[in-house]
């Protein structure tokens, strides 16, 4: 029976494609392998259901297609069968949801020792900010933004003076240290997306969003924008370079602070001496 065979081939072909597909997720570079495991569980459960339903359907078409003299059975319902199927489905759904929620809990619980860094999106480029030696980042305001102050830092905030501001350069991160990535946008929605990190989050003007992760391998990774942000959306690129801690610090030493960039070094020192304002 040709139709039944083709239907079965669709199911078998889909499974084979899945097994032999050269297109698969990128090698992971952060602690979020839990997410990959949850996807694997989901693939197993949904794959089994998919194959079972289509194979059953193909069998029905093979076994019960119209022939002269065939007459269908008459059975309006079967309460017992319907309940068993409902319960079975609920169990399957629970088996996917439960690990999903556990991992989500981890995803939204930022460890206390995570270093805060900041990524800012604007049409169509990325800027980054790292806390200086004080380990704290200064406050910002979108109204402060000007050519001299592209990330809108508050000039009066002492915490901001030693922040490292990287305008249209690459982001460097140390391996093995949890980071809380704070996300800001100047104009429209963007989304800081590095496929190897698995984590991603929209950047929304008017608010600060975040996610956290721990890089687990060194390398250079593409940063893409994953939320449509206008005509050059596809060209909004940067790179993240995950390094050994010593290399990272060597790089950090060469970076300019906000105070240096805005040429207010002297003023800053004076402010420190007087104990801030």
């Amino acid at each position, binding site marked *: 029976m040709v139709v039944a065979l083709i239907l079965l081939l669709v199911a078998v072909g889909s499974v084979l494609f899945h097994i032999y597909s050269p297109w698969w997720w990128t090698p992971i570079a952060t602690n979020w392998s839990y997410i990959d495991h*949850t996807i694997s569980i989901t693939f197993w459960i949904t794959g089994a259901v998919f194959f079972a339903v289509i194979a059953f359907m193909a069998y029905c078409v093979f076994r019960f297609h119209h022939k002269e003299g065939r007459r269908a059975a008459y059975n309006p319902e079967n309460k017992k069968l319907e309940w068993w199927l409902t319960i079975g489905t609920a169990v399957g759904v629970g088996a996917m949801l439960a690990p999903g929620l556990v991992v989500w809990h981890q995803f939204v619980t930022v460890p206390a020792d995570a270093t805060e860094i900041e990524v800012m999106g604007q049409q169509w480029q990325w800027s980054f900010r790292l806390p200086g030696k004080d380990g704290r980042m200064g406050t910002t305001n979108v109204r402060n933004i000007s050519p001299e102050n592209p990330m809108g830092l508050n000039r009066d905030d002492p915490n901001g003076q030693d922040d490292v501001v990287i305008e249209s350069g690459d982001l460097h991160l140390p391996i093995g240290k949890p980071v809380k990535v704070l996300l800001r946008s100047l104009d429209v929605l963007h989304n800081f997306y590095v496929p190897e990190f698995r984590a991603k989050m929209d950047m929304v003007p008017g608010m600060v969003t975040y996610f956290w992760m721990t890089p687990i391998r060194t390398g250079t990774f593409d940063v893409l*924008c994953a939320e449509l942000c206008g005509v050059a959306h596809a060209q909004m690129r940067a790179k993240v370079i995950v390094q050994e801690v010593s290399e990272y610090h060597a790089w950090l030493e060469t970076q300019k602070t906000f105070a240096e960039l805005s040429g207010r070094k002297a003023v800053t020192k004076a402010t420190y001496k007087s104990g801030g304002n």
Partner: protein
Amino acid sequence: MVDVPYDARADAPPAEVPEVELYHPRSWWTQYVFSQDAKVIAIQYSLTASAIGLVALVLSWLMRLQLGFPGTFSFIDASQYLQFITMHGMIMVIYLLTALFLGGFGNYLIPLMVGARDMVFPYVNMLSYWIYLLAVLVLASTFFVPGGPTGAGWTLYPPQAVLSGTPGQDWGIVLMLVSLILFIIGFTMGGLNYVVTVLQARTRGMTLMRMPLTVWGIFTATVMALLAFPALFVASVMMLFDRLLGTSFFMPALVEMGQQMKYGGGSPILFQHLFWFFGHPEVYIVALPAFGIVSDLISTHARKNIFGYRMMVWAIVGIGALSFVVWAHHMYVSGMHPKFGFFFATTTLIIAIPTAIKVYNWVLTLWRGDIHLTVPMLFALGFIITFVNGGLTGLFLGNVVVDVPLSDTMFVVAHFHMVMGVAPIMVVLGAIYHWYPKVTGRMLDDWMGKFHFWVTFLGAYLIFFPMHYIGLLGVPRRYHDIGDTSFIPASTHTLNAFITVMALIVGFAQMVFLFNLVWSLFKGRPSGGNPWRATTLEWQTPETPPGHGNWGKELPVVYRWAYDYSVPGAAEDFIPQNQPRATPALQGAAP
């Protein structure tokens, strides 16, 4: 035994309201153009929706040409690509599928299937179509205005949609919002009609639990649409104000291209909540009529009652209700409060249960059936496969943490095309093959139909199944050109080219279908009144196509449910709903 004459009508509960006088057209214009007859309005809706749908089909070719062979076609640039995806999505979801299922199938089938002479408010029904047509014309006009249509994506997320970095900022976005507002006004007029007609104009004996699932699906979808579209309505009005009057409903303080803007205090996320409060039920507004119709196609062509009718009805109603508490699963990575993820992932995965029950009941209807592999049945089988596939990938995206890496990638594009593109369109096509004989009195050509089915089904599957894996790899959606990356292997470009070729082939198959529609109108085999030997009322009309007022002198009386196929002991393998029970002894065989 005493030979008492059995009054079959006594079985049938009285109708909800007595018959009302029909509007009678007085001229050619009021009969065929400004018609108040639901059947004519249905055809007007269907033709308009199909026409604008063809525009969306051509747009999909242009997009695929760009994705399959980037840089080859100089007439497609980044701006145009974004305009194509925006218009393609908006047309397909709202102006084609919503209008076709509710305005087209709803108008044609509801009165006929519940045994009414027409919709309850025929004049408002007529207005509904003309306002819809106006909405379509306003939408289509954006192709010709300065700056062209908006390229904000069909989700129209602000601030991007109203700022100058997005194509169509001048006229495109304004006309898009105006068109949506018009569509919603027009839809509300039609929608109220469908709901009131189902509740009030059912013929004698047509209890709610005897209605065909087609009517249940369209009815529930319409109720949902009446509750969901107002959210899009207010969102559109507010965004129009933001764009034209400089208000800040969705606009925070921002800097655009180095310029401080005067906006401040608004919330882009508020728009997303409003949009998806509409947008998620919208998925089911398209899906539920498809669920209903496909149930009837399977039952009729497998000559078997639909398995678990009551469960099917409650699943439709349950899915409809649940779909109002899952909207933020579109926003897991939007920056909303992360704790929302727990709630919305749970509700979203719960909705899988009634949906799975429907799938089981469709395939269990095939079990021990007498399956006629007619073209409508083939499309129904194609629907089951694509819907199961697309529904299961929904379990990835609904499960909050799994969604994080996959959101905004081609996986999402593949998922929603499979589940709310290909699957419902399989049903639309199957339904057209099924009801075309009732509308025209002629059968569609079977050979062309089978060719159309196999190319469309296998082709669409080959387009969207592999596309998931491009997304799994990490390729983002809404990129006109992936450009240079370190993580995308060259073979992905080959796959993209393959998908483009399949898209062109599937598009070509639709031309065969269009030819079939026209050719069969004149040359098709005469169908008679009930070519599929179906039970439901629309096949029992005295004339085919049904005449003015549908039923001749007297309304039909309904004595049984819609699924008396292959009843043991009956001479034929179907018993129409309006056939009285032979003797009281046979009662109780079915609800």
